[in-house]
């Protein structure tokens, strides 16, 4: 059941350039599934900000979000501190349908601020006994985060656009050199990256998660739509039908 809660910030730390990890206390933490997001109100802004869930701690009723400063809203969010409270709607959106998938080996492909929801996914997969291979792309060395955490879950490859860390290039360059032995891929990141990844892995089953400017975040305003791949005259709402879609379900433009 989706609801609005005032949540206390347990910790608020910078983990990379312009990138922050925030842990929030909530009675609903255990309801949050990999792929879902929360919608955060900011005092000085009319519209809430969607932020994906990077992990949960069931025992202690808290969950982690990671965001990057892109504009004034995320800048305001970066200025909160532990002990402050945030007005949050949760849980929002769809999640990876892990219970329905026959999985032995998963390929995780993340780009930039698309990486956080994939960490929660990868951790959940590992707990289910699934082998995880991760390919993560960042703009440069200063923006890399969670590499060590991913390494604890399986083989992890890092690419940076400028070559300042890991391999120079894009996630697709790394994928080209990897064996094809995975059952599903899961990808989240900027739309151009998702287009390149879904094209490259067309022969495979996969899931992607999308981002778009949102109005309501709950499915009423039709601001954040994406065309359906099977019928481009119809659309899916990213906030409610997504953000997670089967790779062949939506048309990336």
């Amino acid at each position, binding site marked *: *059941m*989706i*609801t*609005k809660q005032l949540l206390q910030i347990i910790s608020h730390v910078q983990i990379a350039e312009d990138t922050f990890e925030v842990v929030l206390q909530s009675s609903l933490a255990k309801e949050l599934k990999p792929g879902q997001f929360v919608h955060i*109100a900011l005092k000085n*802004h*009319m*519209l*809430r900000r969607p932020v994906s869930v990077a992990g949960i701690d069931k025992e202690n009723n808290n969950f982690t979000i990671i965001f990057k400063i892109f504009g004034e*809203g995320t800048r305001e969010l970066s200025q909160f501190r532990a002990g402050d409270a945030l*007005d949050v*709607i949760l849980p929002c959106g769809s999640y990876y349908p892990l219970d329905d998938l026959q999985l032995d080996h998963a390929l995780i492909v993340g780009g930039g601020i698309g990486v956080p929801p994939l960490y929660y996914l990868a951790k959940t997969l590992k707990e289910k006994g699934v082998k995880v291979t991760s390919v993560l792309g960042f703009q440069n060395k200063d923006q890399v985060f969670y590499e060590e955490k991913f390494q604890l879950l399986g083989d992890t490859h890092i690419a940076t656009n400028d070559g300042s860390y890991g391999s120079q290039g894009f996630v697709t360059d790394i994928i080209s050199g990897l064996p094809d032995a995975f059952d599903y891929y899961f990808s989240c990141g900027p739309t151009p990256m998702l287009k390149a990844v879904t094209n490259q892995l067309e022969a495979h089953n996969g899931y992607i998660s999308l981002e*778009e*400017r*949102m*109005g*309501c*975040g*709950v*499915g*009423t*305003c*039709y*601001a*954040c*739509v*994406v*065309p359906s791949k099977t019928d481009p*005259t*119809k*659309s899916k709402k990213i906030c*409610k039908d997504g953000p997670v879609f089967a790779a062949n379900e939506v048309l990336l*433009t």
Partner: protein
Amino acid sequence: MSLSTKMPGLTLKNPVMPASGCFGFGKEYSQFFDLNELGAIIVKAATREARYGNPTPRVAETASGMLNAIGLQNPGVEKIIDEELPFLRQFDTPVIANVAGSTVEEYEHVTKALNRSEDVSALELNISCPNVKEGGVQFGTDPELAKEVTYAVKQASNYPVYVKLSPNVANIIGMAKAVADGGADGISMINTLTGMQINLKQRKPIIANKTGGLSGPAVKPIAIRMIYEVRQALDLPIIGIGGIVTAEDVVEYLLAGANAVAVGTANFQNPLACPEIIQALPDVLNKYGFESVEDAIGKGHEA
């Protein structure tokens, strides 16, 4: 403290309703609160055929507001009648259907289709959407066309007709008189103001449609001024819309001459905006010396 207010076809337990396009068809927000609390519900616009709407991005945030160019996306009037409106039957809350179109014939078609629905109490005629290429705003900015489409819909409808006026005109009183001449039972005002926002890094408008409709607290003073002017000029019930966030805002609209109000953008910021405003309204009315909602209507004109 009585919050009830009466308008043609509508007996409202309180004057607060969500605005068209900002509440879908009610299902999503029914997860947050009991829709019985609302005065009425104005549902998303219906057109004859399903509409996909405009390319994304469709929204942008502005100072004290937002721009949108959704483009009247909806599943078409038949699906709305069969699949969306019946959900609202379970609530003791009147439903106002929003009618949109590109031609007078399309407006008539949608209106006649809604006659067969048992779930509607009134129509809101959308002649003011700034975000569609054809229809919409041209009917809302040309008094002759506004009168013509109002007359056609009024003739076709079994329900009272409220015409939603565009603020994108020089003479709002002329538009209000035109739709009154066309037989409107009431008016709702205002729709969004055409605006634009440009991304500095990309050097291009943020909204793919380039222009969008500005809503939120930024537009409230314009709406208040227009309602005040229209209330002085003619005696039609008015649903006031534009940037309402608090119960104080509602009272300001009542003083300007609105009989009821619709809350739009605030629902996005706070899904509980409408019930919180309704809950706060009696104390705010009392604080400013009013005995009921009806007592406050038009009182801003007496000084």
